[in-house]
């Protein structure tokens, strides 16, 4: 921000010092009208060059040259040139208007529960003309799960950005993250999902043609049920071979019917997490 103002100050001073026949405004806020005054007499050609604008017009020296708000919407440095016998120029800066929107990026969109420094976000303010606003300010980040407010964290903006990094919560579900700057607010949602299975337990009994096995409700270590569709691999090992079934969890429990006969050892795994072993006498 300081750098931007310094550049603009140097440009403005340069305009005042060397363009004696043309006087440009010091700083113009984006979207406002401005006037360039000229001295002398006679016809001249006026040129305006800036971010997203280039204009040429015939003007009379000694009269003011109006600059409309529409041509001054983009923040940055502008150059005004008036040419008659000789050319004189002046530079001025258009600075961003007050913040009108926040670009708010939050990462990741899904995160396992209870993971340190797993959620991060950054907010950038922009004015109504989409100019990046560098003016200092404080963004208030708020975290809510359901209706409960978990955390509010005010963060001072540095070089036009405010950011946070935090640990994910212990409950699966939607985590609402909002960023507020003045009366502007932006919302994002991070889906907190169950982590790896914890204490995976399998139970079963002989059934016609083999064994029927199922898990107890599969939770992570924070007590959240693993989502439906998560695969649990059941293995049934017998003297003459092995059978496996990749069964998806449904309402917290994975179930499988496995072909087996005689003494059978059943185990279960979900991802890299192993469960207990179960010894059954399968029906022949």
């Amino acid at each position: 921000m300081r750098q931007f103002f310094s550049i603009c100050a140097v440009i403005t001073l340069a305009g005042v010092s060397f363009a004696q026949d043309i006087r440009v405004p010091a700083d113009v806020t984006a979207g406002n009208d401005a006037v360039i005054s000229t001295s002398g007499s006679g016809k001249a050609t006026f040129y305006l060059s800036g971010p997203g604008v280039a204009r040429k017009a015939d003007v009379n020296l000694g009269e003011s040259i109006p600059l409309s708000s529409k041509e001054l919407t983009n923040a940055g440095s502008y150059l005004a040139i008036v040419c008659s016998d000789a050319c004189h120029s002046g530079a001025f800066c258009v600075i961003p208007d007050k913040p009108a929107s926040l670009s708010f990026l939050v990462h990741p969109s899904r995160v396992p529960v209870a993971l340190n420094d797993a959620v991060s976000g950054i907010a950038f303010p922009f004015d109504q003309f989409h100019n990046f606003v560098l003016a200092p300010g404080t963004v208030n980040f708020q975290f809510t799960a359901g209706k409960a407010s978990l955390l509010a964290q005010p963060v001072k903006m540095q070089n036009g950005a405010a950011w946070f990094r935090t640990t994910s919560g212990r409950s699966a579900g939607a985590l609402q993250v909002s960023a507020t700057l003045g009366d502007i607010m932006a919302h994002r949602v991070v889906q907190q999902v169950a982590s790896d299975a914890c204490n995976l337990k399998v139970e079963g009994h002989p059934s016609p043609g083999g064994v029927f096995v199922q898990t107890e409700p599969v939770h992570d270590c924070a007590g959240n049920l693993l989502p439906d569709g998560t695969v649990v691999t059941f293995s049934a090992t017998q003297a003459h071979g092995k059978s496996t079934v990749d069964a998806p969890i449904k309402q917290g429990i994975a179930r499988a019917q496995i072909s087996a006969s005689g003494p059978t050892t059943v185990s279960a795994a979900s991802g890299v997490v192993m469960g207990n072993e179960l010894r059954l006498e399968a029906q022949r």
Partner: protein
Amino acid sequence: MKFVIPITLVAVTVVLMALALAGVGRSVENVGIEKGSAVAGFTPRAATPEQAMSNLLLDVQRRNWDRAYDAVSKTSEVTETSFIQDWSGSNGSLRAFSALEGFDARPLHATTDEAQMRVRLHWTTPVGPLEDVRDFRLIREGDVWRAVWPKVQIASVPAQIVPVTYLRWDLVSGGTEEEWGSRNVDAPHVRIISMNAIDSAEGAIVMGEVVNEDTVPAFVNVNAVLVDGAGNPIDDENSFDKIAHVLLPKQVSAYRIDFPKLTLKNVKNVRMDAKATLIPASADPVIGVMNQKLDTDAQGKTVLHGDLLNQSGQTVNIPHVIVSFYDNNGKVVWVGDGYVDKALLAQSSEPFAVELPKSMTGKVQNFHVVVNQYSLGRS
């Protein structure tokens, strides 16, 4: 005089044709069966088991089903329809998209009235050339030999309604008018949990296992770059069909990346990269892998075989089995795969077999089978 030359030419042609045909018949008596016949449409009499086998397979190759079925003994318990289905496939199976490219047959034993032949069938398929070995029994009926066709087992499932209550994930793409940053959905998080690089007769192989650690399904591909001592890439390849691409949450798949005609001699480093994208997917069908056992087959090869059991209500057209073989330390020492050429009908099972190279036979202590499935009309 003017007829002498044409008559001579015709006579020589006829003699040469006769010699050629007689030559084919003689050669098969000693060394097995050559592919093809001298004249398309002309089939020598099946005076020997080898000739009968050759005639049958040539007719199958030409999809001349009536003639092929004529070469089957009437004592066989097979109808022409099921005989044709046995060769040409059904239900959108891999066999239905395959063609018999060639065959090699050799007699196992023969008496005056009965013979046993082992035939190596070479198929061209959409997933590459496949080889199948089948044993046939032939008997002499009068002065010709015919094949005795075993009863074709067609899965018969009683009419029923199979309720499908498994999860399905759909993917909603955000609109372009949305605010920046408001519609970013992360790619699934997958992780390579093991990697092993070995040299084989065909080239270098990088293999291991990958897990979908996320709570959404992922389409996964594993890439590997071989890097030399100076840090320059030697070659890069991906897992192609040697992986179960669609991984449900917490599902583990083996992967294998082949680098043909390369050795690890000059390789200093291997850069691995697992790429995952969000895809719509279904947790159905569930396919059980039953009765898995490492065994030695009739040819002396070590083979993992078992049965795939489709526990759902839809047909799986092309089942594909991918196996990771572990040593006694749990390290993946080999990844093999095999396609099942018959469709896996609802609530029915089909056998599968995956060969283990001889060099790995002593090392393997355990294995894990993943079933990849291709179903027509489904993503």
